[in-house]
């Protein structure tokens, strides 16, 4: 297989991530599939960070079990990462930083620091030396990097001819050093690849693109890691397409503003992470009660509390299912990859509008920052569904067009969906309220009315469960082992299924992306079709396993990882082997 996994370990703020990004981008533009994984400390400068990129000529589903190549920019990076290097892998390091112990790897010593300082005479070009050396040793071709560096630098605010020249010089010097001074004695080298029409972006960028394609007209949010990119993206883009952006004073105000805009008939959204999502809960209940559409992105990070803001965890599912007091219907979508972040955020808007309900979009830290190459055809215009509106009758008061007061805003219908109005000439007026109300929206505490309204609100979930697409089984039709997962782990699970099947196991997986309402029949059929069900989740309590247990009586085999880092396919493969 024409594939390689490269990890760069270093200090935050010294260009480890940006160098890795350039390799990923260069390789992707050259025609390789890419999939990145990164860790960073919460601090802007300082602290260990790493960037891992998996490159290949076939679509890539996970970050890779073990790096083939480990580039260490300091001793700490070596100490932290060397045990992850595959047997027979390659270590690249600067002999001025440290001397590696003997091990089952091939080591190349390259004086990154000295080359940058003495040959290029600009120390900031060290990351160019590093990526130039990676390119010379393993690929992608240097031309691919040159193109990317040129286009990035020319667009940068710091752009100047001298800096451009120095960067190009650094790439050349690295290439020259490798070809003249090193004897390549490892098998890792990317072969040629055909060009393809792909785009390269991360999950947050795809959410922004999707929100714009979904005709989002209003965004309000408050900065929080790892969701701020969505806010910053829409702050720039929304005004260009006629939308409105507002930075709120806190997350409560963010969702309150979103609901105000939604009441005005505008498709509206906010984005946050766990701590901010916690603050929004009272208003989630309000949106559910007053039946106002809203899209809420929760880019999950490791909790509880402030937790580990820059680390990955899938631990907000239970909360998203139950956030807010009372019996509160809401919808939940969990995208699995970058393409999903685009298409499913559009689905989220459509669902919010159709079912007049808050829709919670559960991404996670690893997906927000994961860069994937995606076929451009995945980013096409999609159908936009609008809320069911009430016909305006333009009631007349003293000859002037005035709202007919109190139309049957919350009319009982078979689907539970009641036609909605928005202020405007001739519109039918109503009062949105968090109080229990009758069909007209008037406060009403009669027992039978509360029961009927509760049933109406929940009936929308039944309607949605019928109408929404069902997840597809992946793997063997006659599998004995089933895996049910959710969120960003889909590719990793599918890769494990592929590898297990290649080893002779009968395995299949199911990955529901809409988690409220759940596709009951599909899940029951899947559970019945296999002997054992593994539920792998990056959380401590097994939140999906708990849900499946409560809803379907499933006694799942729980596989939980909760260190702040996603699964590798190898870890899930081991779980399959252990239960077989």
């Amino acid at each position, binding site marked *: 297989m024409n594939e390689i996994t490269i990890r760069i370990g270093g200090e935050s703020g010294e260009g480890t991530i940006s160098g890795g990004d350039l390799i990923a981008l260069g390789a992707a533009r050259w025609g390789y599939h890419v999939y990145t994984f990164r860790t960073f400390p919460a601090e802007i400068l300082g602290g260990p960070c790493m960037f891992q990129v998996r490159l290949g000529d076939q679509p890539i589903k996970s970050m890779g079990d073990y790096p083939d190549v480990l580039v260490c920019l300091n001793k700490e990076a070596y100490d932290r990462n060397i045990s992850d290097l595959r047997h027979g892998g390659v270590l690249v390091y600067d002999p001025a930083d440290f001397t590696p112990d003997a091990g089952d790897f091939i080591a190349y010593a390259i004086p990154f620091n000295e080359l940058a300082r003495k040959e290029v005479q600009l120390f900031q070009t060290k990351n160019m030396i590093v990526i130039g050396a990676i390119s010379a040793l393993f690929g992608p071709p240097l031309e691919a990097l040159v193109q990317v560096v040129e286009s990035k630098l020319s667009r940068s605010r710091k752009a100047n001819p001298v800096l451009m020249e120095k960067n190009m010089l650094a790439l050349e010097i690295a290439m020259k050093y490798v070809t003249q001074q090193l004897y390549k004695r490892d098998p890792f080298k990317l072969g040629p690849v055909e060009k393809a029409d792909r785009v390269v972006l991360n999950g947050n960028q795809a959410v922004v693109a999707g929100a714009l394609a979904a005709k989002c007209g209003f965004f309000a949010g408050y900065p929080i890691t790892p969701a701020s990119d969505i806010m910053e993206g829409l702050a720039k883009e929304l005004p260009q397409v006629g939308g409105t952006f507002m930075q709120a004073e806190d997350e409560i105000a963010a969702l309150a503003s979103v609901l105000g805009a939604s009441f005005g008939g505008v498709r509206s959204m906010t984005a946050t992470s766990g701590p901010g999502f916690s603050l929004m809960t009272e208003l989630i209940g309000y949106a559910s009660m007053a039946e106002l559409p809203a899209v809420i992105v929760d880019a999950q990070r490791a909790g509880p509390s402030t937790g580990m803001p820059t680390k990955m965890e899938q631990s907000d599912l239970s909360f998203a299912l139950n956030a807010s007091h009372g019996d509160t219907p809401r919808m939940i979508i969990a995208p699995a990859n970058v393409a999903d972040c685009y298409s499913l955020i559009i689905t989220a808007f459509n669902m919010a509008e159709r079912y007049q309900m808050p829709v919670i979009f559960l991404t996670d830290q690893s997906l927000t920052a994961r860069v994937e190459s995606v076929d451009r055809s995945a980013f096409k215009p999609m159908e936009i569904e609008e809320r069911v509106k009430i016909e305006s009758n333009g009631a007349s008061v003293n000859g002037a067009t005035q709202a007919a007061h109190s139309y049957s805003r919350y009319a009982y219908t078979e689907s539970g969906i009641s036609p909605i109005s928005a202020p405007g*000439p001739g519109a039918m007026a109503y009062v949105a309220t968090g109080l229990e109300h009758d069909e007209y929206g008037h406060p009403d505490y009669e027992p039978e009315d509360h029961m009927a309204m509760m049933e109406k609100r929940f009936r929308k979930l039944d309607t949605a469960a019928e109408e929404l697409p069902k997840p597809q089984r992946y793997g063997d039709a006659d599998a004995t082992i089933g895996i049910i997962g959710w969120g960003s782990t889909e590719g990793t699970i599918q890769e494990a299924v592929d590898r297990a099947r290649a080893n002779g196991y009968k395995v299949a997986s199911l990955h529901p992306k809409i988690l409220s309402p759940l596709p009951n029949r599909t899940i029951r059929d899947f559970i019945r079709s296999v002997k054992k069900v593994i539920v792998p989740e990056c959380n401590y309590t097994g939140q999906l396993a708990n849900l499946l247990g409560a809803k379907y009586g499933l006694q799942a085999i729980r596989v939980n990882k909760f260190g702040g880092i996603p699964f590798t396919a190898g870890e899930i493969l081991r779980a399959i082997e252990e239960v077989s």
Partner: protein
Amino acid sequence: MLQTPVNLTPKDYKSEVKPTWCPGCGDFGVLNAAYRGLANLKLSTDQTVVVSGIGCSSRFPHFIKTFGFHSVHGRALPVAQGLKMARPDLTVVAVGGDGDFFSIGAGHLVHAALRNIDITVVVMDNETYGLTKGQTSPTSPHGHVTKSTPYGQMASSFNPIATALTLNVSFVARGYSAKPKELAVLIEQGITHRGFSFIHALSPCPTFYNTFDAWDASVTPIPSDHDASDSLKALALAMNTEKQYMGIFYQVDRPTMDQAAQELSQRSHEFDIDKYMSRYA
């Protein structure tokens, strides 16, 4: 703000829902002033939204024939601002009590002032928590004895007008529910003012803290020679604890965020996903 060409009367704004307030509640006076103010401005009920939080006074939207948004406790201001930003064509009025705006939602007041979004807020201040049956409020006087302050209020009391002035709110006024005609004019002026308008409406609670007599004695019209463009003089009036001045303390024309956002999006174009994705190709 869209106007209709015919005469509307205050009763055209009255809804079929009967107010839940106690007999003699000050909020009736504010409601009547609002009917009158809206009628004088001939505001279309289909293009006007009254937003509130939670509390006795926050039931207000149910009693008015316009669109209404009876939100959660303390959040009327962010709801109203989001609505106005998304729909600058609408007239948006936020109403509620001293608990909503000066306690649980006090933080939002600061940012509404800074943004100067073109909405009007009417705070019905009764210096007590009526809906929860008489606990102390941020505007209750120091030493005030209630069920939640059995030994007397130990905190000092919030000065709404002085606070609004120091936040550079662009329209600051005070009215009194027992003088609904004057209050109606202030509501009209607040809605007409372009920017964030803050109207402090004294509105006594006869059930838990009856201040009618005290306020009848203390309210005084702002001196006719007051210069409403002078914020320091306005502050001096606001700091007077003997008298409760009524009228416009301060008014200034400054840029509003809703208009700035509208100007930005005038250069907008139709979104094209293919074109947009080229940046990632």
